């Protein structure tokens, strides 16, 4: 799990062009949206694309997004459960 978390941090930084943030700056348990990394709605869509492109996981119900993308750790847990 920790290995996947570190990999995800790098992928999120690259996918979302978080140029001034390093993987060490991201607490895996902190919220990605709101006070965390301050991501916006377009970033949420990019994270959906990231899951599909890099892990083959398609989110069928957009309502699940809030839970899945709460933090890097919740993303990693979802990927572990659903990776094809």
């Amino acid at each position, binding site marked *: 799990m920790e290995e996947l978390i570190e990999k995800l941090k790098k992928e999120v930084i690259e996918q979302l062009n978080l*140029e001034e943030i390093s993987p060490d700056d991201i607490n895996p348990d902190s919220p990605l949206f709101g006070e965390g990394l301050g991501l916006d709605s377009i*970033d949420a*869509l990019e994270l959906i694309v990231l899951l599909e*492109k890099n892990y083959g996981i398609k989110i069928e119900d957009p309502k699940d997004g809030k839970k899945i993308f709460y933090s890097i750790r919740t993303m990693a847990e979802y990927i572990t459960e659903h990776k094809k």
Partner: protein
Amino acid sequence: MNLHITSYCQIHDKKVVVNDRFIFYMENFLNFADFLKAVYKQEAISYPKFFKMDSLSKLGFLATELVLREKPIGRYCSEEVGIVLSNASASLDTDIIHNDSVKDKSHYFPSPSVFVYTLPNIVIGEICIKNKIKGENAFLVSEFFDGTLFENYVQNLFINEGTAACICGWVELLGNNYNALSMLIEREENMEKTGNQPPWNLPFTAENLNQLIIRN
């Protein structure tokens, strides 16, 4: 009504010029995004959203930031500040990137953050968000830089639309060809109040505009 260009920035041909002063030059860069990032870093601009913009928005944003650093517009109400930009290629540079991401149906992953920039007036949106500008705005697509078009359009904003200051300029990008000229236009009476003489200024006329775009 006498209007003046009270500050300008041009980004063109590997260099950045502000009010006739060279402030940046980069001989070699692999891609245009690297050049823009180098300008951002050198000028110590702090705006993380910059890195999420497409290159056209970065170009217009940087040129305007450097103009407003010389001549801040904080003394105007948000609704009094207009913005009129123009170019020849609209958002084609980003349209091509988006098209590349959707043309292969077996590898179909369009990027939402690229797609949102497939309109040229998004450049204006980025500048307005950063500077809290809420006045009249327009993005005009024109084959060539047309000083007369700018003069007439911006004069009309000042006369009929309650505009007290206006950012206007040319923000063109397609592949390796780029040229941005951002200017702040103010009324003569407001210009004189700013102090710090002698400020850089040039009467806002079609002739001066057509000369300014080729000056650097």
